[in-house]
């Protein structure tokens, strides 16, 4: 395998071995500290335009599995790992990570001091980086010159509505960069799902007469989306049970006048205790966020803070006082990550079923 480099905006360069695609890419460099589930992570659309550094040192040891896709076409810009295990060995694992990344035009680089980079990123904050063949001045110039798109949601959201028929509650999912886990959980609960593009209007949603609406996870900044999305949320929340996740949660907060701010360094992992305020219980969940809601800005007359991260203090869940509308910052669908909060989907279906009557 070829020698390649990971170069960072701050001028540092790390030599490693290339795997996957040999493309040269540029993206925001973020890290994920989950200990399992590299396939789920790299296929999660929230990593659109990002280069992911894995803290788990050995990556690739379970190959590529049919039930571990969080989207069919991953759009991450790279994987940075310490130790690559490129394994494909039986029917279930016919594809290795290396082959999968080649097919999807995503480069990987192994043999990197990922612990060092992660410790560094925690201090510098999220910065740009490239995976390149040569770490010369030209490469750095290119890196500095590259402007990353702010049209991430538009690029990953479905262009057309599509159904996922079933016999239970009628749910509309707004796709801001949908993670399959959400569909998987709805499907387990027999929900009849229609997925709409991110730009769906309140009218097009209510036309489908949903029992509930989900605002999905997605990549990038909530500020990159137009005001019309917030208008849609304000209208829908007053009409139908609403459940927002990740980027959806940030949008829900903005629609209800809370302040959202970028975090110094993005937090991706599953090790933070999250307190559910109402029961005082502590759960663990997969988290992946670059933005956080300012707790002080939350209008307590309008919203209730329902979950808090006990390590960095960020607001992890909100609920509207007047409507059955709620949101979580973390990913309750797990995949990858702990199942402790899967029952938020039950909460949602129970709200739908008790409101139906």
């Amino acid at each position, binding site marked *: 395998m070829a020698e390649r480099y990971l170069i960072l905006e701050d001028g540092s360069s790390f030599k490693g071995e290339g795997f996957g695609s040999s493309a040269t890419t540029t993206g925001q460099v973020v890290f994920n500290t989950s200990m399992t589930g590299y396939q789920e992570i790299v296929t999660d659309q929230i990593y659109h335009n990002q280069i992911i550094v894995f803290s788990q040192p050995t990556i690739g040891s379970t190959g590529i599995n049919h039930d571990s896709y969080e989207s069919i076409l991953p759009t991450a810009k790279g994987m940075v790992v310490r130790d690559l295990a490129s394994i494909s060995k039986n029917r279930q694992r016919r594809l290795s990570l290396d082959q999968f990344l080649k097919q999807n035009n995503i480069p990987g680089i192994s043999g990197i001091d990922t612990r060092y980079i992660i410790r560094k990123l925690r201090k510098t904050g999220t910065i740009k980086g490239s995976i390149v063949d040569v770490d010369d001045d030209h490469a750095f110039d290119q890196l500095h010159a590259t402007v990353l798109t702010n049209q991430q949601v538009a690029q990953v959201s479905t262009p057309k509505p599509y159904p996922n028929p079933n016999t239970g509650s009628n749910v509309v999912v707004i796709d801001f960069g949908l993670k399959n886990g959400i569909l998987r959980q709805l499907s387990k609960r027999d929900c009849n799902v229609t997925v709409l593009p991110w730009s769906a209007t309140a009218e097009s949603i209510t036309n489908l007469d949903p029992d509930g609406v989900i605002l999905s996870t997605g990549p990038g900044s909530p500020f990159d989306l137009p005001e019309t999305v917030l208008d849609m949320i304000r209208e829908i929340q007053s009409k139908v049970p609403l459940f927002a996740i990740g980027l959806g949660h940030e949008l829900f907060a903005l629609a209800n006048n809370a302040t959202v701010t970028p975090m110094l360094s993005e937090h991706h992992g599953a090790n933070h205790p999250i307190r559910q305020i109402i029961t005082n219980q502590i759960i663990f969940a997969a988290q992946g966020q670059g933005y956080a809601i300012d707790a002080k800005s939350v209008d307590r007359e309008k919203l209730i803070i329902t979950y808090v991260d006990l390590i960095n203090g960020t607001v992890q869940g909100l609920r509207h*006082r*007047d409507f059955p509308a709620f949101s979580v910052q973390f990913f309750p669908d797990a995949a990858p990550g702990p199942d402790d909060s899967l029952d938020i989907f*039950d909460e949602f279906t*129970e709200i739908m079923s008790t409101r139906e009557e």
Partner: protein
Amino acid sequence: MAKVVVDAMAMQRALTRITYEIIEHNKGIDDLVILGIKTRGVYLAQRIASRLQQLEGSEVPVGELDVTMYRDDIEHDGKENDPTVTAGSVTFPVAGKKVILVDDVLYTGRTIRAALSAIIDMGRPESINLAVLVDRGHRELPIRADFVGKNIPSSQKERIRVSVEEIDGRDAVEILHK
């Protein structure tokens, strides 16, 4: 044979949802008081009150209503004759308050009717809302719950058993076949 229809997690969730619905419905917890019908209704009332306190930071008073019935109310195994409900331990006035009445199972509605009379005897509340963990149907009076944990359509030949951690050592709702 007992079949678990609501497990511990689901019961927690139902109480959580009911709590949010109470806030939603009452626009907050000002002037709210909770009355639980003995025995298990009291524990459920206390749990709702502690949830409200977690969220809103202030205490909601909880009172207890005593039911005298000719049968053990644990198992709800027969139709109730008109029971007598008395203020077991209600240390606060209910006049002008928004009362949330809490029971574990809503069945014929006769217990609730008796409870309503008992409450009104104590003073005239602003409003009374009913929260139940289980609504099993078979109403004999025009009474409905405002907040329902779970609707469990059941035959009169079946019994519904609600267990709570505080006295039964576990949380569950089960259907027992006679």
